């Protein structure tokens, strides 16, 4: 009897523990139509959103830009006297317009793509297989570019939510038109996060929106475990990440960007480590500075944005600019290129870090089977 009691207590503790891990209390309690604060969701890395959990399963998501969203669980009523700026999202969401590749990746990771019906990216520009398949099947329709979407189609389809990337910030006329048409939109700011796992942690936000919190928690923990498992000791190997435009300009990732952070987590040392350590994104470099920066890097991650044929050989890289032939990584054949989906995938950033780790440490042939990188021959 005592043993059974202990098992029950243990089960209860595990259940409570699981909910604590997920950050919010159960949504099964009877509170309906009013907001009674319960707890705040615990976020380990993400800086650009927060979640307050209310009794009855209501949640308020607050983004860094100040926008706030109240999710109302299925079957529950909308509380009265809400703040005017609070966007109410009655769950479940089953008609969503997707304009952010990061969000698409995270939603795919928790099997929430069924809710997407529209997108602002054409079929050819998607490298996430699941989204491509959904477009091929007709489940997701293209509605035109993010800055000039087909407003008529949007007005007719009335998506419950439009998930846009930060590109919306400089097109206020688009968000103004959404407001005029009574359409709710949310700007996915995961790409503003500096830590790779913070980007992955945005899956928790999408877990709330699509009632997939358990899956979101599991995905996040899995990626965290992948990174923890690497336990990369600094190898002392210097790694540079850059891309070259067709005009010949070289753009090097800033030291404060998430990609250098991924390289550090993978055991590499990003070079140039002093290039804007507090900023994300890239810096354009003139040829001389680039040469000075890149010449002694042990490894290079070449970012290939090509939408058609990607380069596969070092000769093709050198053909773009002969000075590349002098780079140590080119001479040692330690140049890796990103695959086309590299910049759309967010859900498995942990696996990408693992790939980088393999690329700079493997002494066997295991680096021939990487998912997100390939070696230039």
């Amino acid at each position, binding site marked *: 009897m005592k043993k059974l009691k202990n098992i029950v207590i243990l089960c209860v503790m595990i259940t409570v523990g699981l909910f604590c891990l997920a950050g919010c209390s159960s949504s099964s309690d009877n509170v309906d139509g009013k907001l009674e604060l319960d707890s705040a969701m615990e976020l380990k890395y993400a800086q650009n959103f927060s979640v307050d959990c209310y009794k009855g399963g209501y949640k308020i998501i607050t983004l*860094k*830009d*100040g926008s706030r969203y109240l999710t109302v669980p299925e079957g529950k009523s909308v509380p009265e006297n809400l703040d005017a700026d609070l966007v109410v999202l009655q769950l479940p969401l089953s008609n969503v317009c997707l304009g952010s590749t990061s969000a698409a990746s995270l939603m795919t990771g928790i099997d929430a793509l069924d809710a997407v019906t529209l997108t602002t990216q*054409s079929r050819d520009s998607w490298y996430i297989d699941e989204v491509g398949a959904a477009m091929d099947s007709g489940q997701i329709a*293209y*509605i*035109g*570019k993010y*800055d*000039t*979407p*087909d*407003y*008529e*189609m949007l*007005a*007719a389809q*009335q998506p419950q939510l439009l998930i846009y990337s*930060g*590109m919306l*910030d*400089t*097109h*206020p*006329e*688009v*968000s*103004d*038109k959404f407001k*005029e*048409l009574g359409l709710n939109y949310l700007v996915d700011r995961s790409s503003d996060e500096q830590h790779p796992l913070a980007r992955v942690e945005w899956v928790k936000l999408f877990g709330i929106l699509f009632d997939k919190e358990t899956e979101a928690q599991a995905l996040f923990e899995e990626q965290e475990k992948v990174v923890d498992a690497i336990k990369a000791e600094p190898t002392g190997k210097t790694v540079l990440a850059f891309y070259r435009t067709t005009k010949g300009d070289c*753009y090097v990732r800033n030291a404060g960007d998430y990609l250098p952070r991924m390289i550090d987590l993978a055991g590499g040392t990003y070079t140039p480590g002093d290039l804007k350590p507090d900023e994300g*994104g*890239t810096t*354009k470099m003139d040829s001389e500075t680039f040469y000075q920066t890149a010449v002694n890097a042990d490894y290079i991650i070449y970012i290939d944005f090509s939408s058609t044929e990607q380069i596969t050989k070092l000769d093709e890289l050198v053909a773009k600019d002969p000075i590349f032939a002098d780079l140590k990584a080119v001479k040692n054949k330690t140049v890796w290129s990103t695959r086309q989906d590299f910049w759309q995938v967010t859900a498995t950033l942990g696996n990408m870090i693992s790939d980088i780790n393999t690329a700079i440490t493997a002494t066997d042939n295991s680096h021939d089977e990487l998912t997100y990188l390939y070696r230039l021959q």
Partner: protein
Amino acid sequence: MKISSVGRIARYQIVFVLLIFALIGALVFSINSGSVEMSVKDIIKIIVFRAQEGSVESNVIWKIRLPRLIAAAILGGALSVSGFLLQTFFRNPIAGPYVLGISSGAKMFVGFTMVVLMSYVSVLPSTIIVLAAFAGSLLSMGFVLLAARKVSNMSMLLLVGVMIGYICSALTDFFVNFAEERDIANLTNWSMGSFSGIGWSDIRVMSIIVFISLIVVLMLSKPIGAYQLGEGYAQSMGINIKWFRILLVLFSSLLSATVTAFAGPIAFVGIAVPQIAKILMNTSKPIIIIPTTFLAGSVFCVFCDILARTLFAPTELSIGTVTAFFGAPFVIWLLLKRKK
């Protein structure tokens, strides 16, 4: 003599009536084109009787199609009249609002706003972009005006305008060097021009500026006509040339700045349409050409906008792509014709 005068008036009337019908046709075609299928009967009911208020169809007509096509008509007309004024001022058929650096000035300010201001604020209100484009356009034309006080040779002044455009472009490139990829992409998209996303509040502002400017320009018809016959003749008619030139450039700038502010730079309309109007009317009389240019510009832009949003729907072409596709061959033809 009398017969030819009657013939001319008849020609003016016929062209006017045809242009009005063409504009009505373009507007009807435009309001009946889009992703949401609606019968003409329903569209009439929605517009005239405010039927189905709050429905998808009503929202599409009142919040999307109507503001857009009205904006295309107003801004197309404004841009064309602006081109006519500048061509008159510079006595040069290829002097258009954007040859003189108006778009470059606007792009410089919008670029500055997108690249520099975005570092301090997370979201830009749409009025800031509109004001930035407006201020940039006026600033570059302000410099042309300053130069106009010193330079009397029109070709030299045109060259000064082109140079100011280059300076603005260089400054824009300077910002772009420090910009993030997404800001560069957004600036590029803005500089291609579009009537997408225009709302009723925008229509109100642009209507006030454009129609007041148009009335003033019409009132200037007589001095413009005298100026066309030469500065000496205009002076002998008692026109203060210095002030007249300032007014001409000022209203031309105001019109094109309004277009750039709300729709971004739109190429070739300002150059091509005034020439079309002159060919249609077979006269350069400002009192005839100004309204004709406005109407022809409206028709041209409404049709180009229909093509821009329907040719590859749901992907929308920039309005500049369509206007240049039709406008550029015309300008080439015009240059070749002048050469002959």
